[in-house]
């Protein structure tokens, strides 16, 4: 099923919050957003309902929708869950992959190891994880992952050089464990990487006053 207009609006609003364009406490400019995404107000209203449920917005009757600001818990929950899902993908991939598929993962791992720019790091890292998920051949995992909303600030790798090295190291450890057929090690290594990156995302969001800190209002 393709993305609905409401989905597109929700995705747009989330990224605006993550990038700090919409600030905590700010009232959502619904008409502007509708225009930016190219939809009517109806999908915007649907998106607001979904975003309120997800914790991104707070609706005050007759006043509008207000940005909650990300709290640390939300970021950590996201990365912990995503880390576990990818760990599951690694487990399945180890059990199911063919030599050809492993060779492809080798290639993707090498590509990330050789990445020189932050943008390339992001692309290559995503390609490796996507490749691993594809090899895992689990329709249900793909449904679960598709529903996860990414929380990656647009400037993450540019603004946080440590994040580049950490990602390269993390994927290398994950791939080594996958090659060794060690599902436990793969899961442990990858969850640790995601949790570590979550810490950096939180620090970055705090530095730009985007998060509410540990206690959301």
């Amino acid at each position, binding site marked *: 099923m393709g993305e609905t207009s409401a989905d597109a609006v929700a995705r747009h609003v989330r990224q605006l919050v993550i990038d700090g364009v919409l600030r905590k406490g700010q009232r959502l400019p619904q008409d502007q957003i509708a225009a930016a995404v190219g939809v009517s107000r109806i999908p915007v209203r649907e998106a607001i309902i979904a975003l309120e*449920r997800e*914790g991104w917005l707070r609706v005050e009757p007759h006043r509008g929708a207000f940005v909650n600001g990300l709290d640390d818990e939300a970021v950590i929950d996201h990365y*912990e869950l995503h880390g576990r899902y990818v760990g599951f993908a690694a487990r*399945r991939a180890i059990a199911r992959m063919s030599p050809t598929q492993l060779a492809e993962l080798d290639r993707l791992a090498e590509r990330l190891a050789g990445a020189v720019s932050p943008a390339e790091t992001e692309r290559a890292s995503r390609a490796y994880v996507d490749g691993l998920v594809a090899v895992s051949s*689990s329709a*249900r995992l793909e449904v679960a992952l598709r529903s996860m909303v990414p929380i990656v600030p647009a400037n993450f790798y540019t603004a946080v050089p440590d994040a580049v090295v950490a990602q390269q190291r993390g994927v290398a450890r994950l791939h080594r464990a996958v090659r060794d057929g060690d599902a436990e090690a793969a899961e442990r290594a990858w969850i640790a990487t995601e949790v570590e990156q979550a810490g950096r995302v939180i620090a970055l969001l705090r530095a730009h006053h985007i998060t509410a800190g540990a206690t959301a209002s």
Partner: protein
Amino acid sequence: MAAGDDAAVAGIGLAPRRARLHRASSGQQVASFIRRAIISGELRTGERLRQDDIAAELGVSRIPVREAIIALDREGWVQLEANRGAYVTGLSEQDIVDHYALRGIVFGLVASRAARAAGPAPAKELGRLQRGLRAAADGAEFAAVNDQILRFLVTLAGSPRLRAALRVTPSIIPEDFFELVPGAREIQESGLAAVIRAVKAGDPARADRTMRAVLARHGEAVAGAFAARGLLTPG
């Protein structure tokens, strides 16, 4: 728990509170009927669902039949194709095992968050609920108390994201689970006892691990039950 929580937990694979006191909605009853027909072999893999016949047999309109089919499509029992109707898909062993492993991941995180939020008041409530579980007279009552425990853990965890994740992976056998799957009640009772111990002890890692283990055992039991009835499709 506030009334709003009912809306929040409905759709994550737990029966809404009202369903314990009143009958399930027509759509849910139709879905239950179709699931049982598939499990008993009356409806075979690849068979097209005759929606009008089902509606007539159950004495309902097409609307709840349609609702049921949409739910069953999400759960993986049927495949709804735009112009062709709904077909019984059949689940593979891998599909079933994956489903419970993924549910285990999310519920495991819920349990670990609940363990972090644990204190004297939640511990007391969990003890009370656990006693209710042990004393349940039949499968329906067991399911109802089980729902209460899981709902309580989800509330303790306090994570909108985990709630959302649960909604995406609805249960394969939402109703009658403890009646349909041999050994499920024992697995759940002993498994939840271990999870509750870990939550009370404030041990997130152990709560996560034990919850994942419960769901993995359910996965094996369901796969075994399906295999025994010749219901598994290859792959």
